[in-house]
């Protein structure tokens, strides 16, 4: 399997028991998966375990990718749930580090703005707690319960924060 193989090709080969394809898929996706997992959990050890679980899960059930949507999105769906499983096993885990606000160059601001328009400034107006809930439910596509486990807060809190975020975003975008 060379560079020309699509992710779908690799998954098909993995379903045939081809180990090289698992390696190829790993080299392609492990870097960004690691980075994204690290944004959800600041313990590198937990992130590493979740990443390993992800690829073992893919090796076991490559056919659970139904052929719809991006393979990358499907992989993230697995990865974030494996992370939640890992976190559930260690109740004493330290919560996600709050992202530092850095000075954004004007150029980047424009580039990011092109992609998301007014939403970016609307999101910025939310408190970190609300952003975290939006991130978990909207961006990561997690259920309320899954988001609650990831953020280590009660499910009811996820719901109430989500509705508050919805109201604030609507006001900001209006």
């Amino acid at each position: 399997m060379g560079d020309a193989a699509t992710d779908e090709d690799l998954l098909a080969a993995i379903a045939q028991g081809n180990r090289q394809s698992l390696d190829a898929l790993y080299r392609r996706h492990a870097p960004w998966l690691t980075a994204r997992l690290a944004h959800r959990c600041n313990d590198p050890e937990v992130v590493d375990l979740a990443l390993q679980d992800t690829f073992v899960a893919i090796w076991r059930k490559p056919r659970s990718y139904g052929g719809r949507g991006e393979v990358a999105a499907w992989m993230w769906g697995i990865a974030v749930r494996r992370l939640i499983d890992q976190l559930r096993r260690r109740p004493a885990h330290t919560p996600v580090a709050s992202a530092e606000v850095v000075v954004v160059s004007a150029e980047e601001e424009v580039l990011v703005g092109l992609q998301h328009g007014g939403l970016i400034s609307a999101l910025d107006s939310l408190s970190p707690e609300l952003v975290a809930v939006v991130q978990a439910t909207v961006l990561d596509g997690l259920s309320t319960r899954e988001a609650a486990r990831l953020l280590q807060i009660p499910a009811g809190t996820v719901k109430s924060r989500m509705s508050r975020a919805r109201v604030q975003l609507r006001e900001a975008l209006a």
Partner: protein
Amino acid sequence: MTPTPIPAWHAGPELLADYVAGTANRTRAASVETHLLRCAECRAAVAPLTDTERLEGNLAAITDRVDLERISPVERFMHRLGVPHHVARVVAVGSAERVSWLTGIAVAFLVALVFDSFDGSETSMFAFLVAAPILPLAGVTSSISFRSDPLGELVTAAPTTAMKVFLMRALTVLAPTLVVVAAASVLVPRLGLQPVLWLLPSLCLTSTALALGSVFPLRIVTWALGTGWVVAASIATRGAPRTDLVDRFAAFEPAGQLVLLLVSLIAIVVVAQRRDTFDFLDLGRTA
């Protein structure tokens, strides 16, 4: 499959670096994450920004875990006993075949026991004692020739010599066999040492085959020895009463067993000395 359209917008090296370092704020991070799901180009650009050593470490861990899932129950059991990975793999591959050899020997032995107690003869026991040494001979030489071995390629490429692999495998056959035979001797006292009598012929046939195999083709040597053994047994017992077969064949007498032991020891020394030639012949002639 149609290629994924590449979005016009790209995260850019600085933003990606901020994202990986965790210094991009949440909303910019969210932009990057959404974009990465759809853009293989930017995903690839993340790779040089990540810790290679950590990535390789995780890949090694995944490989190990995937390997463990593929191994046989025998191998997993050996792991639990603390047998090193590579040894367990070499011993366990083909263990299914060896289990069937063992079962074959055990069943033949039981059949011999039952039949002989019906008519008081030694016919079945004698047949068993003659046939039993042939099985390990065939099993060992076939495992050495790598013809039927799924691990063949791996073994020839491994730093372990074929000899070492053979010895490890022979041990896994011998140990359970001895247990079965010892149990039989205890359970059926009238047999005495009879069930054990085939062990030395077996050792002698196999080691001689390997010693000669360092000069002649192993397959021919195996066939010659196996046939020779059966022919010798039938000549020795020609015309003997059915109740007195085992003692007629010199190989099952104390003196004969001693000779067999000596021949075995000489053969083992020869094999040990010529093992380099032996490894070479293996790959050259039987592949």
